[in-house]
């Protein structure tokens, strides 16, 4: 079973709009990470938020973490066609150095 579940599974927006996707996880974490995967490619690390952090920014990305609800969200502001990809959350468990991935959100940004 997967540690993380993402919502929605797919998202279609117009260029310039914001995209928000959510992730839930089940057990205690050290950190939560977000990755992007373009079609046919490997995953690229976007941002990491530690369990003692509530919000983090990186360029047009904003990540929030609510450990009481075991959930995180990724916001992409002012989306571009190049943001079209699948986005995955991954939880780094409190025990061991392993990441457990969610099922991903497919984002389509229409020009």
């Amino acid at each position, binding site marked *: 079973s*997967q540690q993380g579940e993402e919502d929605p599974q797919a998202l279609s927006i117009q260029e310039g709009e914001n995209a928000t996707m959510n992730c839930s996880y089940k057990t205690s974490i050290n*950190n939560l*990470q977000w*990755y992007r995967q373009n079609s046919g490619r490997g995953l*690229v690390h976007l941002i*990491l938020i530690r369990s003692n952090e509530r919000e983090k920014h990186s360029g047009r990305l904003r990540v929030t973490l609510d450990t009481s609800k075991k959930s995180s969200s990724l916001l992409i502001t002012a989306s571009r066609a190049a943001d079209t990809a699948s986005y*995955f959350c991954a939880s*780094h468990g409190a025990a061991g150095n392993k990441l457990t*991935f969610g099922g991903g959100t497919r984002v389509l940004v229409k020009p």
Partner: protein
Amino acid sequence: DAGITQSPRYKITETGRQVTLMCHQTWSHSYMFWYRQDLGHGLRLIYYSAAADITDKGEVPDGYVVSRSKTENFPLTLESATRSQTSVYFCASSVGGTSYGYTFGSGTRLTVV
């Protein structure tokens, strides 16, 4: 991704054959991982390694063997390939600890016929 390479990119093999997927990283990262990606299952951890000669099972290790005699290499072997092992396989590496993300290779698309 520069620094972590997987080979081959594509492989077709027959049921019952042994096949080895290669992974090489140039950063001397301590940790290396093998994931498989399937529709409906996301990425699932097969095996991982914390250092040379140290390996451990992940979520779906059955039918796979790994070794890590050198820090930079982490091959994954399917001892007797089955159709259910048709998947895209990703290798990843990490410095380790709780402050760093993973760096992924470009993947190997394996088809077992």
